[in-house]
């Protein structure tokens, strides 16, 4: 008998008392009543609590802010589908110079990514209550590796994409896409429970909330 048949048989045999699957009580919250401003306020509060750096700007101010944040980076990577306005203008080097562009059809190698100082991505959805940003691999966020290997992640969140609580956010997402949920920069508490930011993932997370 194959292991598969064997195991399924054992499980069926273990369930010979025929337990009935209960109704799932879903009395927990599935939406929050927060208004637009309150959502932004809460998300900022939670991100700061996780030692992320945050600013809230009008959409038109985003490119200038990104340029400022990138000023010290010798090189940076963007996904090919990033909003072109965000990195347009005199401060941004042309492709191939300081700027690398990554896509599924023309991916950078891991070694190339390791040589890059920073990454700029968009995001799919954010959760205000938990300070979580979800990337779903859409063209403005790119492959999972680009937001992982560089030491510094600049992430733009559209205010319209902020959900109040986790159920609201997950209901807006296609679960079969490659997903990354990010809450603050990488961190460890393995030594005497003292939190240290930045172990293997990006050490610095800068979030720009665009109104």
């Amino acid at each position, binding site marked *: 008998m194959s*292991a*598969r048949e064997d*195991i*399924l048989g*054992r*499980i*069926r*045999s*273990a369930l010979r*008392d025929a337990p009935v*699957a*209960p109704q*799932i*009580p*879903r*009395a*927990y*919250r*599935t939406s929050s009543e927060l208004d637009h401003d309150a959502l932004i306020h809460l998300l900022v509060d939670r991100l700061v609590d*996780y030692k992320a750096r945050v600013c809230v700007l009008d959409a038109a101010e985003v490119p200038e802010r990104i340029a400022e944040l990138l000023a010290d980076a010798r090189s940076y990577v963007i996904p090919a589908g990033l909003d072109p306005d965000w990195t347009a203008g005199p401060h941004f080097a042309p492709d191939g110079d300081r700027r690398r562009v990554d896509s*599924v059809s023309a*991916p950078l190698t*891991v*070694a190339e990514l*390791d040589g890059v100082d920073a990454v700029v991505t968009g995001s799919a959805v954010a959760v205000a*209550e*938990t*300070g979580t940003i979800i990337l779903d691999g859409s063209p403005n966020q790119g*492959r*999972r*590796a680009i937001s*992982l*290997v560089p030491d510094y992640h600049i992430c733009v969140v559209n205010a319209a994409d902020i959900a109040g609580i*986790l*159920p609201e956010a*997950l*209901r807006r997402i296609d*679960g*079969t*896409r*490659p*997903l*990354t*949920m*990010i*809450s*603050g920069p*990488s*961190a*460890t*508490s*393995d*030594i*005497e*429970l003292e939190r*240290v930011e930045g*172990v*293997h*993932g*990006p050490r610095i997370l800068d979030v720009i909330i665009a109104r």
Partner: protein
Amino acid sequence: MSTFLGMPSLPVFGTGNLHAAESFPTAAHRELGNAQLRANLGHATHTIRDKRLQVVSELPDWEQLRDAGSAIKESVMARLPELLEQFEQNFTARGGVIHWARDAGEANDIVAGLIRDTGETEVVKVKSMATQEIGLNEYLEEQGITAFETDLAELIVQLDHDKPSHILVPAIHKNRTEIRDIFLREMPGADPALTDNPAVLAMAARAHLRRKFLTAKVAVSGANFALADSGTLAVVESEGNGRMCLTLPETLITVMGVEKLLPTWQDLEVFMQLLPRSSTGERMNPYTSLWTGVTDGDGPRNVHLVLLDNGRSAALADEMGRSALHCIRCSACMNVCPVYERTGGHAYGSTYPGPIGAILSPLLTGIESEENSSLPYASSLCGACYDACPVKINIPDILVHLRSVDVDSKRGKKKLPSQMDVGMKAASWALSSGKRLGLVEKGLPLGRLAAGPDHKITKLPGIAAGWTQSRDIPAPPQKSFRDWWAKEHHGPETGGTNAPARGTARADAHLNAQDKEDGA
């Protein structure tokens, strides 16, 4: 859903790191002598405990989430064969490959075979309870394959040739100075000027593992959840080592117990709220990765999943004990357990320590496994674990149930009544009547004699010896509460010096009535 029509089979128990090399009382006795361990543990468990309480109290619907989580898991167990088949179909349809493993040995063989097929001799690993349970690292080493643990705590434990002692923070028993010494001793190229500052130590680990991450071709992971309706796997972590392993290599091999399924994508919204708050006491862990089979151009091209039984079907067959399989390995129960806090995780022997380990390990191995049969007694039954458990596993009830299974199985083996049987009979005789208890209590001063001048009993005879093996018992009081009460109050009728309140009069009346009922 297909109905099972075959003969009911006997439970097949799990193998691997589920057994202690020695019994809990023996191991606990030794561990209790380690004051450093107790200090480290006490600090750590109290810190997480306080954080957990705080973030849990932020959620107005925490109890509703627990109710949902508990019901979802109960429904998973009831529908397990059907959900496994559904998951298999969806995962496979998206380019993943599923392997089934009856026990630890089979799972190890499958993983080693998959690694050999890639031609690699090194793999990076994400912390996983399932691979610890099957002893994968040790097995791979025998096969000439080196597995590098990449979670900081796992790395510390691995470098020190030690064993994890907590399921969430495996190096909880070590303090910063010990960790610095381990790094200096075992980490090639460690800076001799390394300090014991946690940030400095974390950066040393980063430097140590960076090259491994960037060049590894094969990674091995566990999974926190598997969603049947989409074929999706999830790994919850903090450091980014998980993301490194799950996305950079070409081949990803995941080992997961069959009980980790959730029926639908929607159920994730419940568990992603329950898990981080219960485990690290954070609103959300820094990183969660989800993948469904293979995605073109993003992440590993070869994605395997080993579905592990290893005693889970046997645990499922125990109608009272099966809810132990609801466990999402958050570790909240061990952080609140007074027994765990004093003995540490190593005393439990199995990969699964603490309250959940005390029920899960004997369920997976069978209570007849000698080393694990003492685990259900490693509890004060205070119930703190049940209150803390995000999926409401009634650990105290299952402990009591397993104790009775253990007693029955032992009784089945010997014909003569044991000391325990005799003792219990005597206790039931004495406790069933107030008069009899009073008589027995007259013997208390004898206990004081046994205690000696320091008023401590350090050695009891016979079966009770186990109790005094790792603790002293204070000598019994000079007189019983009953005698003291009678003397202080002289009863309501006689109007003693301390006039009794109404409640006490009722209590006395109640005692008298009981004596009469007993015909005493």
